[in-house]
């Protein structure tokens, strides 16, 4: 399991290779990459809570490993100033079969959006502003637990 927070960009191909290098038991690698959308913004700055962000992602990786038979997990989240087209986040999951790899990657992204302490501030021509959390993100995470969305409590 690898969880990294960094300012620098990441190389998706290199991360997949790292996950599966020297192994013949892996039959599926799923990746999700979050990318900074243009959407009228000049740039965005990602703030995070050092220490807690890593800990929170690691807690959810441990939960994913308990739920699915994973053979490897990599999560990389960038912070600092990003411009449209830049990578933001990578989740890569490896398993024997695709079902676990797909499901675990989706689970990790849903929880990462809802629970990992990161905040986006957008720079627009008309001024800067903090991105507001979306109710749909709480609903997406809630489907894994059958409980009500946290944000609606």
């Amino acid at each position, binding site marked *: 399991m690898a969880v990294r927070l960094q300012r620098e960009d990441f190389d998706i191909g290199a991360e997949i290779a790292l996950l599966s290098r020297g192994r013949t038991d892996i039959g599926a690698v799923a990746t999700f990459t979050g990318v900074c959308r243009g959407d009228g913004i000049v740039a965005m700055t990602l703030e995070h809570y050092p220490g807690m962000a890593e800990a929170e992602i690691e807690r959810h990786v441990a939960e994913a490993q308990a739920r699915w038979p994973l053979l490897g997990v990599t999560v990389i989240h960038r912070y600092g100033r990003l411009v449209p087209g830049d990578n933001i986040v990578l989740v890569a999951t490896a398993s024997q079969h695709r079902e676990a790899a797909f499901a675990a990657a989706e689970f990790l992204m849903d929880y990462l*959006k*809802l629970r990992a302490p990161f905040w*986006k501030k957008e720079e627009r021509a008309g001024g800067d502003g903090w991105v507001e959390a979306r109710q749909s993100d709480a609903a997406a995470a809630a489907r894994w637990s059958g409980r009500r969305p946290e944000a609606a409590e």
Partner: protein
Amino acid sequence: MKLLYFAWVRERIGKPEEEIDPPAAVHTVGDLVTWLSGRGEEYAYAFENGHVIRAAIDRNHVKQDAPIAGAREIAFFPPMTGG
């Protein structure tokens, strides 16, 4: 104990962190929010919609009724928007 503020909570209060020594009557995170709100208009502004603000004690998410006894680090921040 050490308080940390992030995103617009940090901007409204005007500092990223501080050391505080709250009175003994402050038992929970919610009590702490009420006490902080009385410290000045920048705090009152940051916590004006206290129910939307999230808290963490020693890097774990907690609810407003969580006790603060023994906490080393308490953080306040808006709902998260990473990913």
